[in-house]
């Protein structure tokens, strides 16, 4: 029982102190802990949590930390997850005020941060690939590709807000299997009619 709290704290501590570039770049790290390392949830579920979290305002990493904690251990878990994630850097922020000049002008610290960005890019790319793979598995090659292209055009060129796009995807998703069922039925009926004509 205590082991879950310890693992949760450790995982959220690690993702809190190693995520550079704000919340969004921390997402792959959180996914690694929750899905690959501790297997708290399947990747599909993580994808859904991430999507829902993106439709809500506020920092993304802390929403995920709280949800993971809640899913494992209820309200207390949510609190532990949150604190482990934000406390170390919040305290560092207050403690380092007097060294503010050293920090923001140090070339060494700049170099350290710059070297982490490519690593984060690789992790983000990997996540993109894996969610794409899941889309292909669930929707089929052509439908997944079509959805991806539509999403890309809407986000990149139309500049549609991601929260709105996710809301649209969720809305269509809720009737997706019904639509597919109807399509199959009409196709079957057409075929039957054709067979009927031949007879």
């Amino acid at each position, binding site marked *: 029982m205590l082991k879950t709290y310890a693992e949760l704290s450790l995982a959220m501590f690690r993702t809190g102190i190693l995520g550079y570039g704000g919340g969004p770049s921390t997402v792959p790290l959180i996914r690694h802990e929750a899905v690959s390392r501790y297997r708290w949830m399947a990747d599909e579920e993580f994808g859904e949590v991430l999507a829902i979290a993106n439709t809500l305002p506020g920092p993304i990493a802390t929403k995920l930390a709280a949800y993971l904690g809640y899913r494992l251990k209820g309200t207390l878990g949510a609190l532990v997850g949150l604190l482990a994630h934000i406390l170390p*850097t919040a305290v560092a922020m207050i403690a380092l005020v007097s060294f*503010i000049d050293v*920090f923001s002008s140090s070339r060494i610290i700049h170099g350290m941060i710059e070297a*982490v960005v*490519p690593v984060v890019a690789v992790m983000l790319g990997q996540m993109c690939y894996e969610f794409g793979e899941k889309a292909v598995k669930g*929707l089929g090659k052509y439908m997944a590709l079509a959805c991806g292209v539509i999403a890309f055009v809407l986000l990149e060129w139309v500049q549609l807000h991601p929260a709105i796009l996710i809301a649209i995807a*969720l809305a269509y998703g*809720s009737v*997706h299997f019904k639509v597919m069922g109807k399509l199959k039925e009409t196709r079957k009926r057409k075929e039957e009619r054709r067979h009927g004509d031949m007879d």
Partner: protein
Amino acid sequence: METWIELLIGFFLANVFGYGGGPSSIPLMYREIVPHYHWLSGAEFSNMLALGNSLPGPIATKIAAYVGYDAAGWMGVLAAEAATVVPSAVALIVLMRILQKYKQSQAVKGMTLLVQPVIAVMMLQLTIQSSKESILSIGWIQFGAIALISYWLMQRRKVHPALVIVGAFVYGGIFLGR
């Protein structure tokens, strides 16, 4: 009004209207912190942001900690942090609980399926954006080399990403820090 109540209101508003994670709510926080409540001056805000960006972790909570402490001590930290993270965390938990209840329904299964391509594309955008920024600051060769090595370590050798990041820190501190 007590300062901590103002912190509660200010940080709540800045974060509840900030979509797309912490970084996108920075301008909203600026509005509350500098022109509205005068907790910091403009120059102090930029200094704080520079410090915040050189430390890891979510940016919104670092700003909340700094400003909360500066304005009202530890009570201020508590108020600002709670206003930043609690509303959105509770909203996510409540929404997910509703969805979990109907997990077996075709509707929720379809929703889970259809968000996958959208998440993939959002991740693609983040990948492109961070790659571009990185190439601009350290150049093609450094970017390519670090990316390839970290891909090899994480995917082929299954090294924990935390270790790869620490490795990148060391490399960057020694070779890029001039």
